[in-house]
């Protein structure tokens, strides 16, 4: 996406600071993350100093500053999921994928994230796979999720 594209994207918003978070959302939806360049465009479009745009963006856990892997797997280890096995699932993923939460597999294929709640507590353990929520997850569900993509994915 060029600067001009980002600028275009932002033109849906009036140039007022109140639209900062919506603008960041819009950019992240398109780009999958917030690049420095994109933040600069947001800054000048909304007339908010760039440092503040950065400061605001970095206050929210769901906004990213690095391009994530092709897939994003987020796994909940909140208390309700933990007590029903969520943490064990994370351990398994750690050892199969050989990455830590927050990291991306070598080929930039999959980013693994640990989250404190997906608000599916009553159907935990829960994961989010590329934006889609999945509940009552067990080791088998995880395997099948990862194998959907096995053509490209070398898990391990």
């Amino acid at each position, binding site marked *: 996406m060029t600067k001009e594209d980002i600028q275009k994207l932002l033109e849906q918003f009036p140039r007022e600071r109140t639209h900062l978070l919506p603008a960041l959302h819009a950019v992240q939806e398109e780009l999958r993350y917030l690049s420095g360049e994109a933040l600069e465009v947001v800054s000048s479009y909304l007339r*908010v100093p760039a440092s503040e745009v950065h400061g605001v963006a970095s206050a929210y856990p769901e906004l990213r500053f690095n391009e994530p892997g092709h897939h994003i797997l987020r796994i909940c280890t909140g208390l309700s999921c933990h*007590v029903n096995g969520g943490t064990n699932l994370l351990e398994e993923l750690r050892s199969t994928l050989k990455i830590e939460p927050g990291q991306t597999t070598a080929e930039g294929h999959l980013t693994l994230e640990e989250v404190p709640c997906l608000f599916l507590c009553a159907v935990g353990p829960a994961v989010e796979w590329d934006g889609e929520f999945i509940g009552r997850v067990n080791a088998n569900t995880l395997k099948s999720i990862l194998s959907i993509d096995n053509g490209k994915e070398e898990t391990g």
Partner: protein
Amino acid sequence: MSYSQLKARAKKRLSQGLGTQYPRVLVQVANCSQAVGAGEALESLRREVTQRGLKVSVVEAGCDGACYQAPVVLLQHPDGRAFRFTQVVPSGVPELVQGWLEGKPDDLRPWNGESPLWTMDGDKSGFWSLQKRLVLEDCGQISSQDIDEYIARGGYASLGQVLSSLSPEQVIETVEKSGLAGRGGAYFPVARKWQGARAQTKTPRYLVINAEEGEPGIFKDRHIMEGISHRLIEGMVIAAYAIGAERGFLYINGEAHLSAQRMIHALRQAEENQLLGDNILDSGFSFHVEVRRGAGGYVLGEETALLNSIEGERDVPRTRPPFPVEAGLWQQPTVINNVETLSNLPYILSPNGADFASLGIERSKGTKVISLSGRVERPGLVEVPMGTTIRRIVFDIGGGPLPGHDIKGVVAGGPSGGLLPYSQLDIPIQSGMLDEQGAVLGSGGITVLDETISTVEAVRRLAAYNAAESCSKCTPCREGTDRILHILDKMMEGKGQPQDLDDLTYLAEIVGFGSLCGLGQMAGGPIRSGMHHFGDEFAASVGVPKNDRRA
């Protein structure tokens, strides 16, 4: 258009649909049921019905709260009978359709039909009978996306009544009498807050609907927005009228996509029906709502952090005073209310509304929607009168422990609450502290723990959450929660020392009393209550033998 005209129109339209002569099937699709296949079940049902050319209307509804049964399919027969299929596996849908819908709608099978692909709920469990549903009434029973269904069942009648015959002051008075207090967790009297805003001469005033719902273990507001969207809209317009706000923000959690989607749809419908926007129901009163989305974080739900977020600032809490009712959004008087709070208003302002105050116990009126999860047989969403004991919620409604396990306690109020041991579960739910040590009702999260769980680990998880979610603004919270976590980490690694217990107590105190906002102020709760009620486990983890503890 007047309300009665509106209602007549809705009824007329509905009577022209299939639903009045032929069976109607509702699939309960909501955030979590979607996660266990409700969406697929709906798809395949639609497919089957079309393929077979059946005269059956298929409706997408929200969930009714029996998460343990999700996905749920309801069959409503025109003669009034209804059947409830639970844990419906998408691949079981053809069988379901074939067996139940095709051919002879009069020859329905009796209760207790069983299939490996679905089960039937006869509610022998008590899950339903012990609940009292005001906020969740009709949730899961109607389409939340068809405003006429809500209207036909009397929805928006309270708003019609309010706009046609009550002054804002009278509305506030009614709400005051009801004793309604905020369901976002702080239980501040709603009428008092509204009066505070009305007392300000500055205009414009704003209404902010807090649908951020970012506390782990809570999923009630999503549920309301997904399942009974129009009740919330009716409530917010009543509130806006009472405080004299012409503009509002519905701030929905950034991950609650389904809630946002359904609310946006419902808001549009409400506007089309002149129930929102300009000149509502020809009353001259106008109210416009803008939907905003969050981007994660517990503290974002804190009301002043939310205001900062709307203004395009970091979502850190503000100092108080001034309070939002005096100087909130853009320094204008602003009322912030929770989704559940507002969803109580249609009932309170209905002809039966006076009953509200008779529900519950002294100082805590009405019902509360509880999000029940953890090591329990029937996790889900439960609405009970205030004053119901936790034991009743966990055992009688929630079905008690998982087979073969023993409940050792619950976490009440999540990371901002505390632990209660099995022996203390007879405490009735109410606003304020549930016990001296830190357990609170908060926004109504109850997570059940059994013997498989180390209490120290449970507390550590809550502490880790608080440390990670600290917004960074104030020192005791940012630093103290982190210190607490480090000590607990050390203890979990078996490197704890007796001194650590004193440090934990000290830190919990400093963080609790020193912090700026509720996050830090409540962050000591899990620590204090864990150490108090499960002292043995804590003592053991720092190597102190059981009987030496008090020495």
